[in-house]
């Protein structure tokens, strides 16, 4: 697949602090790629380096084949950016803002059509400072699209928005994807990353600790699927005696199941035991479980060497 962004061994230091500490990733054409991580993980620093707003300390970065720092002038006409904490001039209206950008970019975009695309038509003539937080972000999206960009960089576009406004921004991001644009998204909301992304990189302390499609990450870093049912210790003992990995958890029994066949065999075994049981459910890790496992453990600094994910160097 066609690479739009290529990053290798990217480092950004502020004095002794390494905000970005050797990051590698590739952005493929037409995908939504998310940087997921807690605040201060290095997401914004990375995205600002890609946008040409910040100079890297070392490493290789190519965005649309250009070096974003030295070729910023050429790059900015081909990318769209909604920076973190987007603000605009308080006494300009969305329509004037779009016209200003269209003039600066020499873009032939139709302001009315763009306003409609981000659902701002009825607020087109209201001063920016009278708009809501969600509408502010929509102005940001509209401005990012004025130059018909090949890649859109959205840095925490829904932070601080209410759920309705957040969903409305999500719709806009989905539309960007269907229009064939490549999207680089940073977020600290798991749901957002899971809902929107083709691929995710989980970043913490300036390092990428997991990368892949949400399902791949869960498969790779999550615990194995389990079944859970209500039963007593005797039942758990019986299953262990039969070679299953069974545990008493919260008044129930949980058994690891590697395959679909395992599930069937567990069912047969408990039925054959003659012991009382009910409420049989299957459990698998969500992205959130994985995230907490990876990021939470890293933050405690007790990630055991055997479990250390490959991406961590």
């Amino acid at each position, binding site marked *: 697949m066609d690479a739009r962004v290529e990053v290798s061994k990217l480092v950004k230091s502020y004095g002794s602090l390494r905000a970005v500490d050797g990051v590698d990733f590739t952005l493929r054409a037409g995908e939504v790629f998310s940087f997921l991580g807690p605040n201060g993980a290095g997401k914004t620093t990375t995205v*600002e380096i890609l*946008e*040409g*707003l*910040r*100079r890297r300390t070392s490493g290789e970065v190519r965005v649309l084949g250009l070096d974003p720092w030295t070729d*910023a*002038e050429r790059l*900015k*006409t081909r990318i769209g*950016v909604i*920076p973190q*904490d*987007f*603000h*605009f*001039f*308080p*006494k*300009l209206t969305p329509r*004037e803002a779009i016209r*200003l*950008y269209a*003039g*600066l*970019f020499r873009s032939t975009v139709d302001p009315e059509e763009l306003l409609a695309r981000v659902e701002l038509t009825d607020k087109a003539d209201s*001063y920016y400072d009278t708009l809501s937080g969600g509408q502010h972000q929509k102005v940001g999206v509209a401005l990012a699209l004025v130059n018909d960009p090949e890649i859109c960089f959205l840095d925490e576009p829904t932070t601080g928005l209410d759920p309705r406004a957040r969903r409305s921004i999500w719709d806009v991001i989905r539309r960007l994807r269907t229009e064939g644009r490549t999207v680089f998204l940073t977020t600290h909301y798991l749901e957002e990353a899971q809902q929107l992304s083709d691929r995710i990189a989980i970043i913490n302390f300036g390092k990428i600790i997991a990368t892949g499609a949400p399902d791949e990450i869960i498969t790779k870093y999550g615990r194995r699927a389990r079944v859970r049912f209500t039963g007593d210790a005797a039942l758990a003992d019986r299953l262990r005696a039969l070679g299953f990995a069974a545990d008493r958890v919260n008044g129930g029994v949980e058994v690891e199941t590697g395959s679909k066949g395992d599930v069937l065999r567990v069912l047969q075994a408990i039925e054959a035991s003659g012991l009382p049981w009910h409420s049989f459910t299957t459990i698998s890790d969500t992205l959130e479980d994985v995230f907490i496992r990876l990021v939470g453990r890293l933050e405690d600094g007790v990630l055991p060497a055997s479990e250390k994910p490959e991406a961590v160097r």
Partner: protein
Amino acid sequence: MNLRRVFVYFPAFAKGYLRNPLGLFFSLIFPIILVLIFGAVFASSGSSQVPLTVQNLDHDSPQSQEFLALLNTTGAVSLSFVSPSAGNLSSYLSHNSLSAGLVVPAGFGYDVNHSIPVHLLVYTNPSAGSSSGIVEGAIQGAANGMNLKLAGGFPVVTPTFLNVGSTIYSYIDYLVPGLIGFSILVSPMFSMVNISSTWKRDKLFRQLSLTPLSRGEWLTATLLWYVILATISAFLLVAVGKAVFGAHVTITWLAAPFLIVGPVFFVALGLLAGSVSSTPESAGVIGNIITFPMMFLSGTFFPVSLFPAYLKTVAHVLPLYYVIDGLNNSMVFNNPSAVLTDVVVVGVLAVVFSVLAARVFSWREK
């Protein structure tokens, strides 16, 4: 530098400015209010007369009437009369908060006719300052005139009073260029300090840096705006000064350099002050520390020639002094060689500070 982008951005900046009533008030309306207030307070004192309360106790004599007519022709005092029945004039004056009074004694006409020395009683209030002197001088002058006539003499030595230059300069003629200087100082300084600090906080420079607009283009559009603003303000102030107070000022081409280089200098200074401070609040403080002394000590409200020597020295190191001096030299005295000195001083400062500001003021972060 792409001029097309400068002119694309310019209207957006102008709209943002015009839609903020506070900025517009300080740049255009406030100087007009100042010219009206200061003009009314001070310009009138030159031409108007000191009020003098007269109690004529010899009302029926032609001699007393003649003396008062003489006093009236000095033009220095405006006479108002109280009747003899008002009693003691001194207590009348203090009762009515009046500071100057004259009593023409009873029998004034008889005494004058018979060459008997007669005394006029004059009350003045030393705390009223120069107006006491004006009253004393006027009464003395009228008395001398009357004595000369009674002695059958005629004036041999008479002075003729003329003003420097061809026109009669008054306070308002200094005030109008001074307030144009005020405008040139205040509107770029206050808004550039504000812009460079709050735009930094709100990441608006970062937002602009995502577009093809360059820093130089942004600065050009901004400068253009403040030059236009200063020019509009100058024409407004001259119009009001002329219409209301009959000021003798004209905007000539000699004033043009100051309307351009002045705003350039203060935009650079404001940008510098805002860029070096970490928060909008500290920027505001730095801006005020720079602006206020300059506002009062550069000849904005009063001609520097009236300052004591040590304050003159202070004025001469303030950049605004050269802007206002240049405006005076061009708009009032029409003196090109003096204008040249001022242009050179302001021009050099503008270049130096623009270079400094360009060094310090940055859009991208390293």
